[in-house]
């Protein structure tokens, strides 16, 4: 498709393949709109993407490289009378910042017969050599930090912390291989790279509430047929220096060993009482949730679980908010499993792609590495009549949907940009080893000393996001400082890294990445200095669920097509009548295109998975 000219007329042109954009694309195609969906990037899902290990390294490099300010081509020749141009931003590099990479393993697999009396110095020396062999990460980390002052600060701090370690002379924050785990089979960096294709590392870390708007939409629209899901198997919390399981479902409460029978009864009774709003609850409106919990005579254990892991709110959250959140949690329990959450097999990046696929099936046209450089606006009506793509083709459209990163800074409503702090760790063991090695866990880390609450998701290889013998751990919080400043204390407390080698019982971090991402929750679809038929989609927000993006997509769709139903159920393939020449070939062609661009789509489908959760509602 890329070699040819595109059709010059569409109903809706969408730039950016993030979740909200993809849902809008699917919804519009489904009701017969001609949709052109493009992304400047070479991959789907924008900041919602999942990468193989190697692709992630490339992504890191791209973001650390000097952002090439694309020369803005003058497109005024395509403008007709009564029209004016709005230039879009060439890249969205601003949404990612403060990238830092740390590698704690040696390049080659260690010798099994390594003498146990190796001194620390020798080890450190060896590590230095190893570190020198892998300049791509460590150096790039350094080079990145030169870009912004804020990042440089983070680096300094990192370097200071490193200073306490034996290898202080190393300029890069690379650590020696930990010698603390002689029994665990070491995974080398080479192995990570070699098997890197088996990783699916998400840029955002979210979970799907099993009765949340995303799951409802997937079911309603039949998009769920394109993906498979796993239950999050347990909810954990970090408390008194250790990781504990949070009993949330009936089966958990029954099986819990840390609760007394009386606590069990109290917890169950409290949860049951939360399901319906009562006058007693209303009496606490406007007062902190914590106060409400205290007056329920629940005890410290239960209070902690309810506040941090079930309601997932902070101590000053109001009672009505806490109860709403608790209710949502409880409603989601038991639909698919013992926790309220699902996780898509092969990572969250699958979800936007599923909606793109649905759009393609209904005639949407897809182009990656293709962008829209400017909008043509009718001066009289202040509506966008057409767009000019990155190859200078004028494409007329009735509506234009754009990822906020592509909107030029001059056109944005300036809101104070909030950031999310993210960390991605590859570890060698679970934070709470259980009966099964295939647990998928949500770990809530309550706020401490002014640091924000951290949500941590630990994925096992069963989710097809990491290789056997490893776990993929995502940490997310609202930024206070840089991602490293916000999250490394949590990592140091819960894992074995170079900074804390004496903790043999903790999982070791093999490799980790810190970065900040713009928090999309502040971006509104409208109100920017843009034509009225241009809609802005925000990037990922910091919440655990997907409500923000889905709500946004629906509201955009309803503005474009107020009379139409949002994502009605897609018919079964055998019920579709192919009478014209134009529908079926286009859609199949595009579907192939999507598969190719989306990565190893076919290969993925062939791999058989047990215990996958399909989204058919249970009885």
């Amino acid at each position: 498709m890329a070699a040819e000219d595109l059709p010059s007329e569409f109903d809706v042109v969408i730039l950016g393949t993030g979740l909200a954009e993809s849902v809008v694309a699917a919804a519009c195609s489904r009701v017969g709109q001609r949709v052109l969906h493009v992304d400047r990037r070479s991959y789907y899902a924008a900041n919602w993407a999942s990468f193989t290990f190697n692709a992630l390294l490339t992504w890191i490099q791209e973001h650390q490289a000097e952002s090439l300010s694309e020369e803005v081509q003058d497109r005024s020749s395509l403008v007709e009378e009564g029209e004016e141009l709005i230039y879009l931003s060439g890249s969205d590099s601003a949404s990612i910042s403060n990238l830092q990479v740390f590698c704690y393993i040696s390049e080659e697999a260690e010798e099994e017969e390594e003498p146990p009396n190796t001194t620390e110095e020798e080890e450190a020396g060896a590590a230095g050599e190893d570190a020198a062999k892998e300049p791509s990460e460590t150096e790039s980390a350094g080079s990145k930090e030169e870009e912004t002052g804020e990042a440089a600060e983070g680096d300094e701090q990192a370097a200071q912390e490193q200073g306490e370690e034996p290898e202080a002379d190393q300029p890069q924050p690379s650590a020696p291989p930990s010698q603390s785990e002689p029994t665990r089979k070491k995974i080398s960096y080479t192995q990570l790279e070699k098997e890197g294709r088996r990783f699916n590392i998400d840029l955002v870390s979210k979970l799907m509430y099993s009765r949340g708007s995303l799951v409802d939409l997937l079911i309603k629209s039949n998009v769920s047929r394109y993906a498979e899901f796993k239950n999050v198997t347990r909810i954990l919390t970090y408390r008194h220096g250790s990781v504990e399981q949070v009993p949330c479902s009936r089966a958990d409460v029954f099986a819990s060993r840390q609760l007394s029978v009386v606590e069990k009864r109290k917890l169950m009774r409290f949860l049951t009482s939360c399901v319906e709003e009562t006058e007693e609850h209303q009496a606490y409106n406007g007062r902190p949730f914590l106060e409400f919990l205290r007056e329920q005579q629940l005890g410290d254990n239960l209070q902690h679980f309810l506040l941090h892991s079930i309601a997932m709110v902070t101590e000053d959250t109001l009672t009505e908010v806490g109860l709403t959140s608790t209710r949502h949690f409880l409603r989601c329990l038991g639909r698919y499993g013992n926790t309220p959450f699902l996780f898509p097999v092969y990572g969250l990046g699958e979800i936007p792609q599923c909606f793109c696929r649905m759009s393609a099936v209904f005639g949407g046209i897809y182009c990656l590495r293709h962008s829209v450089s400017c909008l043509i606006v009718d001066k009289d009506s202040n509506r966008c009549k057409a767009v000019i793509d990155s190859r200078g083709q004028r494409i007329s459209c009735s509506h234009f949907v754009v990822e906020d990163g592509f909107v030029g800074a001059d056109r944005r409503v300036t809101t104070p940009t909030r950031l999310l702090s993210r960390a991605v760790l590859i570890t060698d063991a679970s934070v709470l080893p259980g009966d099964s090695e295939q647990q998928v866990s949500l770990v809530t880390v309550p706020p401490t000393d002014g640091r924000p609450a951290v949500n941590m998701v630990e994925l096992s290889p069963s989710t097809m996001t990491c290789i056997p013998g490893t776990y993929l751990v995502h940490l997310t919080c609202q930024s206070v400082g840089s991602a490293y400043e916000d999250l490394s204390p949590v990592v140091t407390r819960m894992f074995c890294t170079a900074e804390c080698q004496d903790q043999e019982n903790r999982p070791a971090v093999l490799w980790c990445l810190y970065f900040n991402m713009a928090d999309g929750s502040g971006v509104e679809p409208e109100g920017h200095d843009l034509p009225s038929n241009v809609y802005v989609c925000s990037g990922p927000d910091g919440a655990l669920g997907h409500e923000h993006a889905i709500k946004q997509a629906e509201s955009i769709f309803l503005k474009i097509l107020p009379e139409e139903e949002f994502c009605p159920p897609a018919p079964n393939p055998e019920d579709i009548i192919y009478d014209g020449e134009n529908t079926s070939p286009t859609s199949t062609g595009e579907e192939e295109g999507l598969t190719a661009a989306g990565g190893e789509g076919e290969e993925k489908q062939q791999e058989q998975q047990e215990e996958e959760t399909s989204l058919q509602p249970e009885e």
Partner: protein
Amino acid sequence: MHGRVKIKTTAQQEEEKRKEREKKLKIYVAARDACFSKRNEGIWDDEALQLTQQLLSSNPDFATLWNYRREILMHLETVKDKDEVQKIYEAELSFTESCLKVNPKSYGSWHHRGWVSARLPRPDWARELTLCDRCLSLDDRNFHCWDYRRMVVKMSGVPVDQELAFTDRLIGSNFSNYSSWHYRSTLLPLLHPESPEPPSPCREPPQSSPPPSPQTHSHRVCEEQLLKEYELVQNAFFTDPNDQSAWFYYRWLLGRGMSIGRSVCKYEREYISALLCFVNHKFFVFLTAEREEMISCVYVNRDEERVAVAFSRPVNAQSVGLFLVLDGQPQRVEWRSVHPRFKQSPVWICNLPPGTISDITNERNLTVHWTEKHTHRDCALYTGRTESWCRDSATDQELFRSELSVEKTSVLQSELQSVKQLQELEPLNKWCLLTIILLMRALDPLGYEQEMLAHFRTLKEVDSMRSAYYSDLCSKFMIENTILKMEYAEVRVFSISDKNLTTLCHLDQLLLVTHINLSSNHLQRLPPQFAMLQCLEVLEADNNAIENLEGVYHLPKLEEVLLKNNKISTLADLQTLASCPKLKRLDLRGNPVTQTANVESELAELLPSVTDLLL
């Protein structure tokens, strides 16, 4: 709107589906007819196997076809070698598996699978267990699968501890599944059998017969395991006190530490019937009465030359080989039940031949033999006495409570404490209240009487749908307590006035009572069982709602009947009183019948023996 995807209309779809169905039906009918004709001709070939497979995969509940298939397979067994047979049967297994996917509750498919598994030359039981696990994970109450699994476990000899771990897993994922709990109850006694202890003489009634049967012992569980189980099940009912599975299992457990089968079982049966009344679906529990079968009482009256015999369970004395021996001489007597309504009754009476015991200066020795059970009971009628009896009292037999050793009592005590703890948290939970009542009865029925009554009041309020049931149960317990009190006091007066009785029971225990006071209760009738009170002289039943006197029937010693303020409305209701020869005093004040015309003269005619009539 342009570009919209065209979708077939429902009418089009319906039409297509209809045609499809017609086509299928034609093929199906043809195949079925072909199968039947082949079977009639006795052809057992591969084609028939194919045809039945085709039919059964669309309708796995066609039993005749499964039968035909088995005939073919049995034939093939005779002509093929072992490896081929193995292959054929393996194919059968995967075929039944596909049938089970169509209908996981198909009787035919499960049965066939069991049949094939049993005949497979080299069975792969591990695979079968995995299949069962998958099936149960989809529906943990699929009883076909439970059944099949039991067979697999039996055939493959899975160790008991593994099976126990299996139930652990199922209970962990859903503790509201009684199948798992029940399975557990069958496994525990096998896993930790308590070493049989010698029957301690003090606990056995003196007449005691055979030592506890091996069966009794096989149901016992060692104490260490019991405590673990108590913990497990408490976790369940504290987590969800409204879940009945846990309560049922708990009840089963409470019976495990006890040593003597018969009383435990009586208690347990009562409890289970108590619990079962909560379960409105079809749910059958069959419990064999383990209470020892015996003659519990022999009563002889010299003046009336009459013998009454009470049994530990209702029997038909005419057919169980009952013999009466008087001073070594077998007697020909005719046994009759106390009321013509009963073919089975715990109390039977007979008249001795006239003159055999009328001489008051002779001592008479009477023996009643129950030949069917190889048991008997003696009764001596001493010189100068007009009546005599020999019996085990209810207190001797500990009929109304479990017999507990001291240590088990302490276990029950601590269980009572924890259930009370739950009740503090859930004061209105009916299961909890009922369990407390039953635990209290097991521990000390008289000591906890007031608390029990209070809990019954709460139960009736929180579960008003069953208030009549609770009233009856409470009446029963109150009667038991009164019997105990009466026997401790060694009197023949049974007084239970003003206790909100709604029903009468245990009347066979009142065979010797001469004076009964039932005043100020809520009784509506004196049931036929009341005729078991063969020694009754005075019946006080004022201030009830009695409208029926069926049970006041042939009571040879009854002299006084006080029925003030009841609901006797017609003379016909008083008819049965005429069968009591010694009735002299009758109080009917405050009954509707007193408004009948000519009541006095009618009564004089009906009851000529009554000299003191109050209307």
